[in-house]
């Protein structure tokens, strides 16, 4: 019985400070310590107020242009052909209605309904 009491006391001595310390460690929002990698929010750049000779303005322009180029390169439709043809594109997951066609506008308009049909016929 004495041994049990001693063991419980020891466990309590370890656990109580440990729990207390861990609770104080989360006293403020842990998100404050998270380093987010985020894109430049170029929509907030007001070109009308910018002095185009100022290095800050030029740097911002460079950053946003590079970001736009990267984004458009990722949407390179010329490279999509092969993938669509070799069956790597999983169309079964496209039918859940999450695809926002309203934003696809001009880029998809260049293809006729027939061409779409042809590509899908190859599956």
């Amino acid at each position, binding site marked *: 019985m004495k041994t049990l009491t001693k063991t419980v006391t020891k466990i309590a001595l370890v656990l109580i400070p440990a729990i207390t310390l861990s609770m104080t460690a989360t006293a*403020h929002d842990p998100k*404050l*310590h998270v*380093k987010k*990698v*985020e*894109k*430049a*929010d*170029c929509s*907030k*750049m007001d070109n009308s107020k910018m002095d185009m000779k100022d*290095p*800050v303005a*030029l*740097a*911002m322009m*460079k*950053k*946003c242009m*590079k*970001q736009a180029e*990267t984004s458009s390169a*990722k949407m390179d439709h010329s490279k999509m052909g092969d993938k669509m043809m070799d069956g790597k594109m999983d169309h079964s997951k496209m039918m859940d209605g999450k695809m926002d066609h309203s934003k696809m506008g001009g880029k998809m308009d260049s293809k006729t309904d027939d061409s779409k049909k042809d590509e899908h016929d190859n599956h």
Partner: protein
Amino acid sequence: MKILKLMLLLVVLGIAAVATVMYSGIVNVAADEPHSDLVYWLLEETRETSIKKAAEDIKVPDLADPELLLSGGVDYNFMCVSCHLQPGQKESDMSVGLYPAPPNLTLAAESHEGHEHGDDAQSARKNFWVIKHGIKASGMPAWGKTHDDKRIWAMVAFLQRLPELTADQYQILTALDPNDNQEMAH
């Protein structure tokens, strides 16, 4: 001979006094307990004079290249912002907890109280030296051990413009595109 003995006695007493202070534990090293005004002044003057002297021969390159702001901005955001803050931020865990408190670099040099910063060139020299070599027992690391001079000058260029930046400008200049494979090994 008497003078020699007296001097020897003074040296022994001095060593004994230093040893007593060191090993008695009476010096409080807690960062939440500030130095006395006198000790603070002594340390600050020593630090500022040392940096000024060490940096006086550094040649400042042209810091107007926009590319420097982009490189320096990304590095600042990863390495410095937690202590030295960003536009719109008043404090952080580090800025509050460190002692001596790290300077808020979003404020213009003229608005800092205490030591003088000199003109742009002097300020750039000083910033370069501090970033490269760090400051002992202050929490400021020596980034020169892991970053070349070019990257450090880019940070200096960014620091020159930081006090004028809005929060939106800061976000754009310092953002790192997740798809962009720039160096992130900090």
